[in-house]
């Protein structure tokens, strides 16, 4: 649930909206027919997408329009110091929830004009492609991976150009920048202590280069597939989403994963899982003592879930490692120790639903 929505006790604003229903315009229906996509199937898809994006259902026709427009919005996707995990994740989202006829975002909803892992062109032909698509204006530039600060370090060179130069040139005519993944959003793994290659996040590099353009950070290692494509579709149909102080869309990053986690009940009331595979862990009790970073991690894992809603880390028995937060690799926990199995320090993130420092050295129980 989005934080934009009224709190539990405030019902003055109901999420109902009036319109002429969700009727598609003729052009949209015509396009769907051409593409061999069932109109009703597509309406259902858009209803789900709107719900996911916390958009009023009256926006469904606009989403549908954006997703079937004859001239598809151009997306240029560039990779720097990354592991391809973000792209793998995005590939898993080509449909909102499985599905076959809307099998490919890449063919039907956006024109993915440059993406090194998937594109047919290579070498000079790929470089020509990059130059020609970035010579136009108005494209969305998606970036994954951090970028080494120094152009002459040799730590990143592609197409005979440094990461800094490649990024600067590609950003020049972009309408929007989307940093996908925690490396691009916050520096991520390459920036983890001691940051051997002077890796920068996209935001930091933009500041260095004096580029001021709209930037959305879609953090996560990797981000949830539907969140990546959801953010792009949101922008295309509605414009800029509301962002938090770290430039993440609040619709996905407004809550902690703890807030929507079904194990939360026992965080408050106990008992807690004490070891992997203990009886409490089989019952789905809270993984706080096993180091779960859910209470201090803003993401939609427990709400949207992963891979078409199959599971999410805590459901599969492992605590959250905090991968959507800046510098999560170096996060200090109880006793100032780093580590994914060290419980978070009591009191940290208190305002986000964590109990005070008298809690959770025992068997749970939220007594603040």
């Amino acid at each position, binding site marked *: 649930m989005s934080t934009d929505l009224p709190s539990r006790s405030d019902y003055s604003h109901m999420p109902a909206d009036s319109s002429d229903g969700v009727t598609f315009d003729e052009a949209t229906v015509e396009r769907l027919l*051409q*593409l061999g996509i069932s109109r009703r199937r597509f309406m259902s898809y858009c209803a789900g997408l709107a719900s996911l994006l916390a958009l009023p259902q009256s926006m469904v026709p606009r989403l549908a329009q954006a997703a079937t427009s*004859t*001239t*598809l919005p*151009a997306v240029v996707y560039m990779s720097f*110091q990354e*592991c*391809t*995990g973000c*792209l*793998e994740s995005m590939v898993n989202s*080509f*449909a909102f929830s499985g*599905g*076959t*006829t809307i*099998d490919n975002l*890449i*063919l*039907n909803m*956006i*024109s993915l*004009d440059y993406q*090194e892992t998937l*594109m*047919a062109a*290579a070498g*000079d*032909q*790929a470089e020509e492609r990059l130059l020609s698509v970035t010579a136009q204006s108005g494209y969305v530039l998606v970036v994954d991976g951090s970028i080494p600060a120094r152009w*002459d370090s*040799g*730590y990143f*060179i*592609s197409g*005979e*150009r440094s990461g800094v130069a490649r990024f600067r040139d590609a950003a020049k005519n972009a309408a929007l920048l989307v940093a996908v993944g925690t490396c691009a959003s916050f520096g991520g*793994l390459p920036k983890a*202590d001691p940051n*051997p290659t002077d890796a920068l996040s996209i935001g930091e590099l933009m500041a260095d280069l004096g580029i001021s353009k709209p930037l959305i950070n879609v953090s996560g*290692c990797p981000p949830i597939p539907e969140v990546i494509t959801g953010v792009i579709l949101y922008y295309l149909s509605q414009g800029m989403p509301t962002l938090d102080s770290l430039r993440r869309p609040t619709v996905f990053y407004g809550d902690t994963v703890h807030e929507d986690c079904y194990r939360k009940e026992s965080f408050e009331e106990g008992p807690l899982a004490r070891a*992997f*595979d203990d009886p409490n*862990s*089989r*019952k*789905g*009790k809270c993984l706080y003592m096993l180091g779960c970073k859910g209470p201090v991690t803003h993401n939609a894992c427990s709400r949207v879930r992963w*891979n078409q809603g*199959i599971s*999410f*880390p805590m*459901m*599969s*028995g*492992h605590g959250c490692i905090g991968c959507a937060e800046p510098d999560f690799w170096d996060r200090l926990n109880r006793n100032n120790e*780093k*580590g994914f*199995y060290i419980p978070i320090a009591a009191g940290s993130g208190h305002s986000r639903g964590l109990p005070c420092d008298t809690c959770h050295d025992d068997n749970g129980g939220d007594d603040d």
Partner: protein
Amino acid sequence: MAATPNVIIDPVTRIEGHLRIQAHAVPDGMGGGTITDPGLSASTMVRGLEKILQGRDPRDAWAFTQRICGVCTVVHGLTSVRAVEHAIGIKVSKNADYIRNMMIGAQYVHDHVMHFYHLHALDWVDVVSAMKANPTRTAALARINNGTYKPNNGALPNAAYFQTVLNKLNNLVSRGQLGLFANGYWGHSAYKLSPEENLLLVSHYLEALAWAREVVKLHSVFGGKDPHPNLVVGGMPCTLSSNTGTINDDKGGTSLNTAGLATIKTAVARMKAFVDQVYLPDVLLVAKRYKEWADFGATAGNFLCYGEFPDPALVKREFTDGAIDYPAGYIIPQGVIWADAPTTLVPFDEKMVTENVAHAWYLGSDTGEHPSVGETELYYDGPLPDQGRNPDGTSKYMLDENARYSWIKSPRYDSQPMEVGPLAHILTMHARGGTANAQPTDKLVRGYVQQFWINPTAQGGLGLTFTQLNSTLGRIFCRVLETKIIADQIAGRAADRTLGTAAYAGWYQLYYNNKAGAYWNPNTFTRLQQPNLWPVQVGFGFTEAPRGALGHWVKLNRVSGLIDNYQCVVASQWNAGPRDLVGAPGPYEEALRGHVLADLKQPLEVLRTIHSFDPCIGCAVHIVDPDGKPLVQVDVNHGVCSTTRVSDMRCAS
């Protein structure tokens, strides 16, 4: 420098990571030419992960090493977990071994299918030609080639189905937005499939996207998400749910409930079906049209495997480590094959591994010694980027084979460059199949190689020789073959009377029967605080990854319990590494020798061979033991090597 390179691919696309290829072709006067010398393979991105791992909690290392590569995420994580378990002497439960087998196996199937369709197919399939296809004839071809395959919409594909695919392509063209298909080498004379064959393959390219999404659900049930599913030292973090998770019993529990187990079962069945009905017949169809590619792309002919997939039937007790304690039943054996005896499996001896940075951008150990000796630091002295082009259009940025030219080091075994990966897997299985220790899967491999590769065309084979497996086409063939073997291992298979193999229930069923058992060793975290119980000084973990031999070494501090040193030796490093001290080229480089290019400006032929290795460059580049201190000696009980010393077996990192 040798002759100036006139064939340059930078960036090499449709791979993981960042790679530049240079080669010199002797021009034929008609725009084409022949590459007579080895090429040059250079990785141009580095992150420095091993340095980041120093001083960390060893329980966390898997999460760091997973991020070496988001494509190989499961194997890097598990290699790390195995290394730490080895370092502290923790054994894992049967279920953990079953699940690890399934997760690694699912990664093989997922990666190999996606490699063929999404990374490699466009080297063989002309999308523009597909647009000329007749949908009715394509449907007829599908019935012959893919028989019972029902695409993801659940119906047998008819002309209307292929018309829809055509419409999608036409839409791209009509609005002038070719997206990912723009600027391909379309119409290149080396494309040989008929329009209908091209359209069939394009339709499977699209189907495979939807399919891939389904099979990774196995990872997300066990690991909570994919890519980068969660793992844990000491077993698996997932555990059987206390409830069924069905609609009237949905409170609490875990993902391993009735619904989750059904999801896994479905994913397993889909893997097997797609491999049998689509991937295997499609590869054979492509191979039939491109048989001459069995004559290009050979490496020196030396192959290396660490081995993988312990046979769960051998894992008789709880809390053993199947991967190390039961090497005899590995599906992919551990061993070495030398060029002069391609059917003989030689035991692997870790003492013979060295690494070499003579041509890599690191300081130190360029004498080909163990990397534990000497210093290794990032040291870029290559050409500067961003210098533009010379007036004649040639590049100012040129890598020199006599200098340092890559972020990948050159691992060597007994001083020789070794190829790793699917070709090595099939050859080692084939070789073991001729010994007294032949496994049922070895017999199947020998049978399939005979049936599909060697048998004359009249009998439905390709009519190629065993030796020709060492080729671009052979690599593609071996990849699909091992995918079939592994998909059947997970899903189960019927008896094969001709080949004399019994029916096999499959790993999923074996796990399912045992699912109430343990998932995690409760001694794990306390053992980290008991260095007196640690059996070795340096832990060693390996997996045989989809792209080949993968090993991690971890040295823990006996006071703090934190990581003192961490090294990885990775599959693509073996294949993609640069020349060594004596100038011997790496496998990618060697494989380019002899290629005949129709058009030097469109080096499709080079791309075919490089892609046949399935480059994973993010994996290949990482570093290093920056303090360069020698590792302490340690006994490692690992596979066929009874006792080796890590200080000796330390290899490239």
